[in-house]
């Protein structure tokens, strides 16, 4: 699968955009979306909510299972994607674009985020 080079990745299969004006966009990878199968419900962190890197901040329901959503960085949520709440299938059809999940004003990021190449190797693709 094609993991965009401009993004960074967590070992929990989230992606993180470049930080612009202190804010990064977060989603799950195509690898994760494919493993989940059809996503039918997302519970996202709300604006103003504090999230901590590596801790659960929401959930993704698919046909077969429910999965915790982790934030790859710490910070304050500035937005969530209402389009994905309304149409969770966007996570499957466009995980790196229209299927983004939430934006965070980053206060701290872990030092083990992966490059696209490293994530591709990690995910065993």
């Amino acid at each position: 699968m094609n993991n965009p080079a401009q993004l960074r990745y967590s070992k929990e299969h989230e992606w993180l955009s470049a930080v612009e004006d202190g804010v990064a966009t977060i989603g799950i990878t195509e690898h994760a979306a494919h493993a989940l199968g059809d996503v039918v419900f997302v519970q996202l962190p709300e604006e103003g909510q504090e999230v901590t890197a590596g801790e659960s901040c929401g959930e993704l329901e698919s046909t077969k299972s429910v999965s915790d959503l982790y934030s790859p960085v710490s910070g304050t949520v500035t937005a969530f994607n209402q389009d994905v709440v309304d149409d969770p299938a966007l996570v499957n059809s466009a995980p790196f674009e229209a299927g983004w999940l939430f934006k965070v004003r980053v206060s701290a990021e872990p030092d083990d985020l992966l490059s696209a190449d490293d994530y591709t190797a990690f995910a065993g693709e």
Partner: protein
Amino acid sequence: MTTAPRRTALDAVHRALGATMTDFAGWDMPLRYGSERDEHVAVRTAAGLFDLSHMGEITLTGPQAAEALDFALVGHLSAVKPGRARYTMICREDGGILDDLIVYRLAEQAFMVVANASNAQVVLDELTARAAGFDVTVRDDRDAYALIAVQGPQAPAILAAVTDADLDGLKYYAGLPGTVAGVPAMIARTGYTGEDGFELFAAPADAEALWTALTDAGRERGLVPCGLSCRDTLRLEAGMPLYGHELTTALTPFDAGLGRVVKFDKPGDFTGRAALEAAARKAAANPPRVLVGLVAAGRRVPRAGYPVVDAAGTVIGEVTSGAPSPTLGKPLAMAYLDAAHAEPGTGGVAVDIRGAHEAHEVVALPFYRRAR
């Protein structure tokens, strides 16, 4: 102990189709090919093609094959006419369900028992032991068959395009030997989806030719390959039990609301009779938990094992299967509830979904019934 999962005769086909595979009861099976929701919808509206070769076939032949099955199973198999099939169960002496089965009477002295993959060895061992006093041969035919199902409203038209067999004369729960796409197959009008459809038992060496011919015949009729994921949501909507979820050795058929499969008035004794008679009396007088349907008010999905609670938060049951329903657009579950809370419309029922009590409506099963 870990052993490499077994692969069906259609393994290369699944991989060529890009299937996501899963280990199911020791078999490497297609979970889905693309979107499991699209596959589900295809079966409800057009047709789906399934590889079910993991199912376990056991053949009984001989002058006393019918009597042996009457003794070994809870059903009245000697009353089944050749060419017809029955849904039945095999129970322990204490009445606990070992497996649910479909039994096809192939001829006067020949039956094919189809067991769940996870239970096939147990069923084979039990049938062999229970048949010991009868003039019958029990044969392990698990490797003798590939099983391909065509399910959905377009299934009859698709199958008719590749066989001369009399499908119009083939009733639900009937089976006949025939030729499909030039290969011999036992054609059965059975399934596990809540739709019309067929199950084709053929030699593994012929499986790929059969699959390809059905794929070609179905191309213009909306047929898509379907994995086990949508098979599970299809059977859930249809209110059909799954062994290991709604059926276990801890439950009798009466506990599962399926006491109708136990035929006390058949000739001769059968394994589990005394315990099942007691279970029937108890179910009539003082029902324990009752299998019901639950429809979620919200969008979070009740999953197997989640507790069901009343308005006070007291546990009144447990979810056995749950999934988002593509047809109803809501999460659904089957659950065993205390009888006092099991009436459709009972208020205040909630499922404890990871700590939050989410409201659910109690409904009668099935959730979905096809229009005829």
